[in-house]
């Protein structure tokens, strides 16, 4: 079965929790485990926060949150902004890298996305916005049950 969704919302901090609720409501169709769901929500929160804080530099704009799955196992999530973009994506993705604006940022946003999801792809150009595409293989409660049964048999 194939399914997809797209939501466009204002780049304001109040919508960070909104984005988490939206992606959770969509991802639940894949019957993820609680840790998998937590991973997805955290990664999306990081990407949306980056769009608001860095992409639009807290000046507002629109964020597109898209998600899809096609085989009930692989969830693909895209967070896109039309903000200022990045010159050097590789450097921005380094752990503890921060723009150093004195706002107590941990510089771990991309690192969290990469750790909590199975694949993260970032496309960005100065003045042309940023698109973050994340994929996660969903083991699901059914998968866990199967693993436990196999463990018991062996």
């Amino acid at each position: 079965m194939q399914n997809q969704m797209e939501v466009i919302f204002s780049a304001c901090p109040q919508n960070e929790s909104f984005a988490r609720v939206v992606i959770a409501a969509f991802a639940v169709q894949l019957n993820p485990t609680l840790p998998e769901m937590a991973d997805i929500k955290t990664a999306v929160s990081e990407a949306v926060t980056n769009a608001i804080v860095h992409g639009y530099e807290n000046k507002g704009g629109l964020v597109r949150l898209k998600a899809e799955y096609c085989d009930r196992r692989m969830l693909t999530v895209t967070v896109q902004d039309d903000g200022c973009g990045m010159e050097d994506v590789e450097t921005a993705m380094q752990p503890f890298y921060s723009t150093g604006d004195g706002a107590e940022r941990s510089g771990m946003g991309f690192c969290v996305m990469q750790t909590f999801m199975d694949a993260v792809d970032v496309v960005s150009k100065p003045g042309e916005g940023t698109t973050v595409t994340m994929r996660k293989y969903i083991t699901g409660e059914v998968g866990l049950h199967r693993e436990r049964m196999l463990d018991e048999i062996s």
Partner: protein
Amino acid sequence: MHNLKERYGTVTVALSGELDHCNASKIRRQLDDLLADEDILRLCLDLSDLTFMDSSGIGVLLGRLRILEQRGGSLAVKNMSQPIAKLFHLTGLQRVIQVENDKTGGRL
């Protein structure tokens, strides 16, 4: 945010709700108001009712740790949920922030 007890410079504060970029400035301000009392040397955050935290929360914790360390104090957390514990281990926070009897029992 609830201040549970204050004794000999140690304060335990219970955080509730979500600690993301949206709520970070409010929680940061509340904690800093508390830490304006320089007799407080040890702050322990009870995360029992904290339902979500992302890297914005890490920034808040590191900022408070810095304030406490500058006065020779320390920061501790307790009762982390499994997702928050995973974030702690990923960022290596448990090396600088004391972790007390968390819910995960040390597991991720």
